[in-house]
C-alpha cells in the first residue's frame, strides 16, 4: 500500500454498510438530516463541516467539503476564513491549556 489515503477510496464509503446495514442506514439518514437546510443554511453547514474537517484533519472530508462549499456558493476567501477559525480554535485550545501548566507550576513550586 503506497498510502493509507487514496482519493478513490472516498466513493467506497457506502461499503461501510456491509456488515452493519441497519447502523449504516441510521447514520446515512441522520447525516442527511444534519446537512439539510434548517435554522442554518446548507451553505453555513458546509462551511462548518469544512472547518471541522481541518480540525480533525480528515483528507476525505477536506476533499468532499471543499467541493461542497464551492457548490453551495462559498468563495475561496470565505473558505479560507473558515479554516482559520478551525486553526484558531486548535491553536487556542493548546494555548489555553497553558493555564493547566501554570496551575501545576504553582502547586509544586515553593
Amino acid at each position, binding site marked *: 500500500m503506497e498510502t493509507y489515503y487514496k482519493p478513490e477510496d472516498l466513493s467506497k464509503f457506502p461499503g461501510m454498510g456491509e456488515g452493519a446495514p441497519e447502523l449504516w442506514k441510521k447514520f446515512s439518514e441522520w447525516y442527511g438530516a444534519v446537512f439539510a437546510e434548517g435554522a442554518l443554511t446548507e451553505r453555513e453547514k458546509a462551511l462548518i463541516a469544512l472547518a471541522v474537517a481541518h480540525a480533525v484533519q480528515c483528507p476525505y472530508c477536506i476533499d468532499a467539503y471543499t467541493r461542497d462549499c*464551492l*457548490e*453551495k*456558493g462559498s*468563495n475561496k476567501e470565505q473558505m479560507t476564513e473558515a479554516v482559520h477559525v478551525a486553526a484558531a480554535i486548535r491553536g487556542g485550545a493548546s494555548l489555553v491549556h497553558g493555564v493547566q501548566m501554570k496551575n501545576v507550576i504553582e502547586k509544586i513550586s515553593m
Partner: protein
Amino acid sequence: MELKPFDKTIAESNLYPLKSTGINTLQVNVGKLCNQVCRHCHVDAGPGRKEVMTRETLELCLDILRDTDIPTVDITGGAPEMNPDFRWFVEECRKLGRHVMIRTNLTILSEPGYEDMPRFFAENKVEVIASLPYYMEQNTDSQRGRGVFKKSIESLKRLNSLGYGREGSGLTLDIVFNPGGAFLPPSQKALEADYKREMQKRYGISFNNLFTITNLPVGRFLAYLNSSGNFEMYMNRLVSSFNPLAAANAMCRDILSVGWDGTLYDCDFNQMLGLSVNHGVPSHIRDFDLSRLSKRQIVTGLHCYGCTAGAGSSCGGATT
C-alpha cells in the same frame, strides 16, 4: 471510464425518447467571432474565428419568424454584436414584435465602434443577458482574461444608467454565473441574493435575475477537464447528480438552435459538437418545417448530463 448512456438514464425516468414540446425560442448563433478567449467557452470562440452568419441566413431566420408565432429570439455567439448585420437583425426581429434576448460578454460594449451599443439595446428594448462569472475581480479574470472584470463593471454601470436593471424601466438585465472550475453551480436563488447584495454594495449595480449555468463538457471546458485530470471526476459528478425533473424541463425541448451556416440543432452545445437535429427532421433552416420540428426527437449524448444535474441548467439558468 464507462458512463451509463444518457438515453438509458432518461428511459428509467420514462422520458425516452426525449421530444420537443414546441418551439418557444429561436436561438440564433450569429457567429463564433469574439473579442475574448474564455477558458470555459464551449463555442471555442475568439478573435480568430471566421464563422459568421451571413445576411442571407439571417433573412431565412426572419422568414421563419414571419411564418410562425415563435415569441422569442435569443441571439448568441461568440460576441453577437460583432456580426456586421447584428443591428439590422435585431431591428427586424423587433419590427416583427418578437421578444429579443442578447447574450453579451459586456467587454465588447467598450470596444471601439460598439460604445453606443447599450443605447441601441435600450432603444430596441432587448433583454440583455450578461456574463459575469463572479462578483469579485480575481475569480472573473482567471476565467475570462485579465482586465475583463473592470471592463464588465463599467459596461454594467452604463446599462444601469440607461435604465437596465432598474425597477419600472421595462429594461431587463440578467447576469449569468458559471462555476470557475469542475464543480456544479450553487443554488440560483441563494447566489442571486449574494450577487444582488454584493453588486449593489461594492459597485452600486442593480440587475433583474441571476442565471446559474453548469459548465458542460464541451469545447474549451472539455479541454480543461482533460488537461487538468478532472474529466472522470466531473462526469461522475454530473451522472450521479442526474435529476429527472431537470431532464423533463430541459431547454432543448422548447428551443431550436440555428448555427452560423443555417444548420439546425437542438441546443447550442449540440451545435458545437456538430450534432444537428436528426431522427428524420429537416436539418437546415431553408427546409424549416414547424410541425415536424415541434415534435422532433432530441439528439442526446453524455454531455446532456450537464443540463440535467442537480437543479438543472439552461440558457435561462436553473430549470427546477
